[in-house]
């Protein structure tokens, strides 16, 4: 078996994945619709030999996202941006998010087959079943389907799409299932990769089954190494029952790196980014609308919410004041974890010369996903640790502000990982499957007899 190597994708919300990334001085606030800019950033990660560029998607918009996820309010449709990005690159995989709940298998199979031809074997489908309940209203539906319905539909959908990719005049599909009736054949030739790479992201049991059965890459959202290891082991353990080796599935959690030449500079950038976050007055500690990613209910950005989480009442405190050490001493387990996390990121503590503030607690409390702040060595150590511990086969890199954080990661961290022999110094092939070490699948239909 060949040596395990890291895989990297760039999670591309063009304004940055940090809710205020677009406000960072060097960021391009109008990036989402500037295709030439998107092409330049893609070329940057291609030069760093990234496996893929990841185009997330949502099927609704809501102006209230502007304080929490401005990059996700509006953007280019991902097949359009994906095809334009393919035109400006030669090796990097192009991941397009498409939600089967609101697509049709014949159309989707055609679009991915087309993108795979145009990109000469670099297309990939991020199969998600949808995070936005409000999307239903844009597609003539009464309501968001529940998990069982979404995954029943998705399971049949992906089988139809694979069947269409393999179909031809001799073996058209003639699929008749619970949800779909599709005659076929597809009128686009079989994709260069056979089947474009399939990514999947989700958390439920149904999602894990779909991932173990159908995904080549799984994009995971766990924030801590313990939860990531458990997820990793669980999904890989399910692969066998579908006749797959666990090495055929790459599990890539999201990771937000804030990296600079020195630790001190990295912390300063992290603080600078967070200084833009608009906090809320104390009083209401309940769930807010949408903080963080994916439209899940979020947390209030105030000390009332922090108090509820840590088990000590700190509401009404001056947010810029250093936190009284008593608070840590009296905090519950979640609270102690929050303090440790804030200290890990900011290097500030309740004692010593550099003291952590109440504001730091609010920011720490609302943060989602895994974050690492530091110099090249510290960030590479973090990555290597997750990789060695089998919490990850690589990462979907969340660039908090664009393009500078991408330049910092590719310029500082990638060379360090290459020195350590953990990451490729060049592409060994030209298709996305090549980067993942996956063979081109033979047709699953029994048209071998017709050859």
């Amino acid at each position, binding site marked *: 078996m060949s040596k395990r190597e890291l895989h990297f994708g760039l999670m591309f919300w063009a304004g940055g994945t940090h809710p205020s990334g677009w406000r960072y001085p060097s960021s391009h606030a*109008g990036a989402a619709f500037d295709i030439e800019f998107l092409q330049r950033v893609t070329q940057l990660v291609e030069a760093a030999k990234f496996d893929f560029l990841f185009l997330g998607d949502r099927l609704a*918009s809501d102006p209230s996202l502007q304080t929490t996820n401005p990059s996700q309010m509006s953007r280019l449709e991902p097949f359009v941006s994906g095809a334009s990005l393919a035109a400006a690159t030669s090796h990097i995989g192009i991941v397009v998010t498409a939600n089967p709940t609101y697509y049709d298998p014949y159309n989707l199979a055609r679009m991915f087959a087309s993108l795979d031809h145009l990109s000469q074997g670099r297309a990939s489908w991020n199969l998600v079943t949808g995070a936005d309940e409000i999307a239903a209203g844009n597609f003539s539906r009464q309501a968001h389907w529940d998990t069982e319905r979404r995954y029943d539909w998705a399971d049949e959908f992906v089988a139809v799409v694979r069947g269409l990719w393999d179909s031809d005049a001799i073996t058209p599909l003639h699929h008749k299932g619970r949800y779909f009736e599709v005659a076929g054949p597809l009128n*686009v030739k079989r994709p260069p990769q056979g089947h474009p790479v399939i990514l999947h992201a989700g958390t439920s049991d149904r999602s894990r089954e779909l991932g173990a059965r159908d995904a080549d890459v799984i994009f995971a959202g766990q924030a801590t190494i313990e939860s990531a290891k458990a997820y990793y082991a669980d999904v890989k353990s399910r692969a066998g029952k579908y006749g797959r080796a666990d090495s055929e599935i790459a599990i890539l959690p999201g990771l937000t790196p804030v990296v600079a030449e020195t630790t001190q500079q990295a912390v300063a950038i992290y603080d600078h980014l967070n200084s833009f976050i608009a906090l809320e007055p104390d009083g209401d500690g309940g769930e807010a609308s949408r903080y963080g990613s994916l439209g899940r209910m979020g947390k209030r950005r105030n000390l009332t919410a922090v108090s509820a989480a840590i088990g000590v009442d700190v509401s009404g405190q001056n947010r810029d004041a250093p936190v009284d050490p008593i608070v840590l001493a009296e905090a519950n387990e979640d609270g102690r974890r929050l303090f440790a996390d804030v200290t890990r990121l900011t290097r500030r503590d309740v004692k010593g010369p550099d003291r952590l503030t109440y504001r730091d607690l609010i920011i720490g409390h609302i943060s989602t996903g895994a974050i690492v702040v530091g110099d090249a060595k510290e960030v590479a150590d973090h990555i290597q640790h997750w990789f060695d511990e089998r919490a990850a086969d690589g990462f979907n890199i969340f660039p908090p502000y664009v393009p500078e954080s991408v330049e910092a990661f590719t310029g500082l961290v990638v060379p360090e990982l290459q020195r350590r022999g953990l990451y490729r110094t060049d592409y060994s092939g030209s298709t996305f499957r090549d980067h993942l070490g996956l063979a081109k699948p033979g047709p699953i239909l029994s048209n071998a007899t017709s050859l």
Partner: protein
Amino acid sequence: MAKPLHLGFLYAPQSGHQTHDESFDPLNPIHLTSLARDLEGAGFAFLLVDDSVGHAAPARSEAFTTASFLATRTRHIGLIAAANTSYVEPYNVTRLAASLDHVTHGRAGWLVATGVADPAGANYGQAAFAPDLHYQRAEEILDIARRLWDSWEDDAFVRDKRSGVFVDGAKIHPIDYIGASFTVKGPLNVARPPQGQVIVAHRVVDRRSAEFAGRHADIAILGAATAGDIAALRANVIAAASGARREEQHVRLFAEIVPVIGPDHAAGAPGATSASFLSGTATKIVDEIEALTNAVTLDGLLVAPRVLRSGLDAFSRDVVPELVRRQRLLSANGSITLRERLNLSRPRNIFEHKAPQHASTAG
């Protein structure tokens, strides 16, 4: 004397009357790129990437992906992609068209096709339905698309780094559309297209399609074999336009021609009637173009050679210079968007508030 013309190009390998040379591979991105760039160099106003979801034979790549791939590989040529309203969700196709307009900086168009011309129900679990139903869906989807394109006003993005205001929520509008086939809340999740509204094209071959084009299309492509039939289709389009209170000059009228260049006697017999076959030497073809445009007032021609690429190469080499010599070809003339090139104005946003009126001036 007839006015100078725009040229559009029909890319439709392996469907209708178009085939391709063995040396041209419709799935090869290099071949596609050079095709688009050569058309741009020859002065074509747009490349129409046709599509079919009903024909079983594998032919080419899907139109919007293809046009998007060509977007930044070209600079001036309009890119019109076909999508069939009988088999798409309105929110999806509206986004595709709006996004294509962004990546082309305003050179996008959408050829609205329906299941009448390209029946494909068997691939979509749909029973065949009547032409009127296909057109009813097309009308609804276009209505939804036009509202969604306007759902973000041009200046909805504030992007003020100092204040942290990213958008002005008052300039983003739900559309709350409820129709016979679709319910769409909106808003779209794409900024308003650079052209305001993406250029809409429709193929006109009969009364029903003429009616639709007259009511909705910026470009009507008239497909008939003779000048008389083309004139009749044109009259139907104009009648429908005025019935919908649109001005005649808001619809650009193109006739589809199939040039077959060669010595006079070698001209092939036309097999189809949905286009005008012009055959013979370049001089004779241009004579026929002049005869056609003297007989029928047209804004342009959709050139649909029978064989890709050789048919295009011969047309660019022999016919285009002759059209230029006779001052029959319109150039880009410094325009940037397809709308500007076709001399169509940028539509006002239906949601745009009138400037707030002061009580004194309102009274």
